[in-house]
């Protein structure tokens, strides 16, 4: 019952690949956030600038982690 009619592809396998493509797009977004943060910290130099940079790196790591989990769990 989980197969797509005519195509014969399993719905959950297709969903897995869709999800992975989505996470890859999100990963690009997370990289842009890192770049953006670096640009912002360069524009305005404040004492907590380094902490904010680490925050963007943590977000990138989170995105990589979810992508890796999606590969393994789904």
């Amino acid at each position, binding site marked *: 019952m989980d197969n797509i009619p005519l195509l014969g592809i399993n719905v959950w396998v297709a*969903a897995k690949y869709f*999800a992975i493509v989505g996470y890859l797009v999100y990963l690009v977004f997370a990289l842009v956030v890192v770049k*953006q943060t670096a640009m*912002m910290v360069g524009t305005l130099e404040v004492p*907590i600038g380094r902490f904010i940079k680490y925050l963007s790196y943590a*977000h990138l790591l989170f995105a990589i982690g*979810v992508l890796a989990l999606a590969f393994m769990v789904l």
Partner: protein
Amino acid sequence: MPDIFISHKKEDSPQKPEIMEQLPIHEESPRPERNFYKDRKSVHRHPLSPYALLPANVSFETKNDGEKVVLLLRRHPITNLGWLIVFVIMLFAPSVLSGFPLLDFLPDNFRFIAVLSWYMISTAYFLENFLSWFFNVNIITDERIIDVDFYNLIYKHVTDAETNKIQDVSYNMGGVIRTMFDYGDVLIQTASEIPNLEFLAIPHPSQVVKLLQELRIEEQVEALEGRIS
């Protein structure tokens, strides 16, 4: 027979023309400290302060040598209330909605990843809004005013105008919330290429206008005294 057409040799030490001796010698001297700083203490409660007077360790990309940041302004924190409420709702949504069979059609592994994705999107939402608030600043230095705007992920717009180019400064503060929390918009008209600068939703707009006025007067006094070129 003496040759009358041969000129006399000049003396070794060249003499300056009289007019040159009368001119004052301009040596490289440090810019005199402005009266503005003498009677003011730094008001910089925490790194997220929206109104930082004479902040320490704050600099910006186009800062000149010897230029001093007098005031760093951000939008009033109360303006963040809307997205903060949405963020808190986003954080608690999975646990609240777990009682409803919204994701029951998904297998367990998909459900787990869906919840993780939700938190990931929530983090991005928080980060984007926070970065937008934190880095969209207005800076007043002892030489100019600067407006830094980040419109989206990779587009920034930095405008500045020299203090002596300021023609008119006004502010408006209307509404219950703005009056209660003492924040409003400061509008600055300048004689430079960019005619208007707007400091939007900043705290203590009346104090900002007063400070700009003091800086302008000081600039005019300096111009009269011939301290600036």
